[in-house]
C-alpha cells in the first residue's frame, strides 16, 4: 500500500512548524540553523510529494526531485556559511547566543 499524499503533506507541515518554532523561539545559533534546515526539508518533502502525485506508471514526473536536489545543494552552502559564521563569532566573542549578538541593532 502506498502512503497517501495527504500524510506526506501533513508531515511536511509538522516539520515546517517545528522549524518555524525553533527559528523564532530558540536563541542558540546552531539550533536556529538546524531549524532553517528543517524548514527547507519540509519544502523538499512537499516537492517530492507533489511530484509523486502527478506521476503515472509510465511517466515519472521528475520536477519535484530536481528542485529538492537544488534545495539540498543550497542548504548545504547555507549550512557551510552559517556554521563558519558561528565558529568565527565564537572565536572572537565566545558567544553562540543570538540575543547577545546585537551590536548593530537600531
Amino acid at each position: 500500500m502506498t502512503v497517501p499524499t495527504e500524510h506526506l503533506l501533513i508531515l511536511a507541515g509538522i516539520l515546517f512548524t517545528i522549524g518555524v518554532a525553533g527559528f523564532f523561539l530558540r536563541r542558540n545559533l546552531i539550533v536556529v540553523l538546524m531549524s532553517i534546515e528543517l524548514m527547507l526539508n519540509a519544502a523538499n518533502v512537499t516537492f517530492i510529494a507533489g511530484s509523486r502525485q502527478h506521476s503515472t506508471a509510465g511517466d515519472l514526473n521528475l520536477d519535484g526531485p530536481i528542485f529538492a536536489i537544488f534545495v539540498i545543494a543550497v542548504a548545504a552552502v547555507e549550512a557551510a556559511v552559517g556554521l563558519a559564521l558561528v565558529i568565527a563569532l565564537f572565536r572572537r566573542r565566545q558567544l553562540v547566543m543570538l540575543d547577545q549578538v546585537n551590536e548593530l541593532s537600531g
Partner: protein
Amino acid sequence: MQSANFLWWIPGLPLLGSIVAGILHFVELRARKRSPGDRTYGATAAWCAVAAVGAAFVLGLIGFGALLEVGETGTLTSASWRWIDTGGFDVNVGMVLDRLSSVMVLVVTGVGFLIHVYAVGYMKGDPGYAKFFAYLNLFVAMMLLLVLSDSLPGLFVGWEGVGLCSYLLIGFWYEKGFPAEAAQKAFVVNRIGDACFLLGMFVLAGLFGSLDIATIDAGVRGVLADPERQGQLALAALLLFGGACGKSAQIPLFVWLPDAMAGPTPVSALIHAATMVTAGVYMVVRMNPLFAACPNVLYFIGTIGALTALVAGSTALVQRDLKKVLAYSTISQLGFMFLALGCGAWATAIFHLVTHAFFKALLFLGAGSVIHGMHEEQDMHRMGGLRKHMPRTFITFVAGAAALSGLPLLSGFFSKDEILAHAFADGGPYLLLWGVGIATAAMTAYYSWRMVALTFFGQERFDVATVEPHESPAVMTVPLMVLAVLAVVGGALGLPAVFHVQNLLGDWLAPVLAEGNELLFGAAPPHMSPATEWVLLGLGAALALAFAHKGFHDYRDGTAADARFASERPAAARFLGGAWGVDKAYATWIVQPVKLLAFLIAVVIDQFAIDGLVNGAGAGARRLGMRVRRLADGSIATYGLWMGSVTALLAFLWMWMGVR
C-alpha cells in the same frame, strides 16, 4: 569727408600712457619691497602721462587745422571698426572729427593737460602716484573716445569708461573709508542714468535700424513725418536725457557729485567740473536733431536744468566746505547748460561748457592749492586772510570767482547772459525758466564772493602757530595762471550780437547745428531787438555786481553772517545745508526700503526659505532614519517575522491577483 586715421591716436595716446603708467606702478610696488621709499618710477609715470595728454592736444590741434581746410560741413573720419555684425544690424565704431567734437577734444586735452601738470605737484609723495596718473590718463582716453565716436555704442563705451575712472578716482584714497562710499554712490547713481541711456539706444535702434549718429541725425525728419513713431522718438529723447541726468548730475540724480569731492582735487577739477560731467551736455548737442524734433522733451530738459541750477545754487550759499561750494556750483552751472539746451541754444550750451571748464577747473585747482597749503583743511570757517600767504593762488582764484559770478566782460558773464537771453527770447513758458535762471545767477555771484571773502580775507581763523600756510610750487601755480587768463578772456569766443563782432564759437558750430535749429525753429529763430539785449546784459551785469558786492561785504570780516543766518532761520539753514533734503529723502524713501528688502531677501527668503529647504532635506532624512532604525532591533526573530509576514503578504497578493 576726409580720411584721417590719426584720429584713433587721439584717444590712443592717453590709453597708451595709462598702460605705461600702470605697468610702472607695479614695477614701483616691487621695487619698494627692496627699498621702501622708492619714488623714481612714479615720477617717470607722471611725466609719461603728461606727455601723452600733451601729444593728444597737439593731435587735436592738427585735426583742428585740417578741419579749417575742408569747408563748412566737412569732417575728418577714420577707418571704422566693425564691432558687431549680425547681417541685419551692424555696429561700426569709427572716429569722426567735426566742428563740435573738435571743440570738445581741445577742451578735454587742453584743460586736461594743465590739470595733469598741476597734479604732478599736487600728488607728489602719494604712495599711489603712478596709479593716479594711470587712472587719469585712462579717463582722458575714455572721454576722447566719447567725444570722437561716430556711433552711439562707441560713445557709450566712453560714457561707461569715464564713469569707471570717476569711480576709481573718487575712491582713490579708499583706505580712508568715506571716499570708498562716495565712489560707490557715484557709480550706483550713474548706473541708473546709464540704464536709461541704454534703453534709449534700444528705442533708437528700433526706430532707425542703426546707431550711427549721422544716420540718426539724417533720419529724424523721416520718422517725424510718421505720426505713429513720433511718440517713440520723444521716448528715445527722454531716455537719452535720463542718461545725461546721471552723468551730468541733474535733478534727480545729482546727489553723487557733492560726495565725489572725496577724491583728490585734480580729479574734482578734471572729471567733476571740467569734462566728464559735461558729457551729457555734449551728447544732447551731438544728437540735436533728435531733441529738436521733440519740443516738449526740450522744455522738460530746460525745466530740469533751471530747477537744478536753483536747488544747487541755493545750497552752495551755506556750505562751509570749500570744495562743497564748488561742487554745488558745478551742478548749478550744469543746470544752466541744460537750460540752454532746453531753449534750443545748442551753441550757447557748448559756449558755457567751455568757459565753465576754464573757470571751474581754475577754481578747483585754486581750492586744491589752498587745501594743500593749509595741510588738508577744507572748512572755510577755519581759513581766512590767506591772500597774504599765497598771493598767486589768491589772484588766480579771484579771477575764477569773478568769471563764475559773471562780472562784466569776463567769460562767465557772456556765456551765462547768452543762455538767459535765449530763454528770454524764446518767450512763453520759457520766461519762467528765465526768471529762475536770473535768480540763480544772483545767488552764484553771492556765493562766489562769500567763498573768496571767507578764504582769503578777514582774520586768520586757524592756529597760526601750528598751521603755516604756504604758496604752492610753480608746477601748480603756472597751470593756475594759464587757466586764469583763459577764464578772463574766454568770453571772446562768443561775444553777443550787439557788440557787432563775430560770435566765433557760434559761427564755428553753426553747420553742425543747422538741422536741429531748422527742425526746432523753422526758418525764423526767435530774435531779440538790440535794445532788449542791451537791457538784459545790463541787468545781468548789475545783478552780478550787486550780489558779488553783497556776498563779499557780508563775509569780509568773518563768519558772523553764517552764524546769524543759522540762529535766525535754523529751518532754512538746515534745508539749504542738506541740499533741499534730497539726500535725506533718498535715504528715507529709497535707500532704507532697498536695505529692508535686501534684509528680507537675505534673512527670510535666503536663510529661512532656501536654506531651510536644503537643510530640512538633510534633517528630514536623518529623522526618518532615526525612526526606521528601530526596526533593526538586533533580534533574528524580529527580522524573520518581518521577512515571513511580508513574504506571506506578497504570496497572498500574488494569489489574489492571479485569481482575477
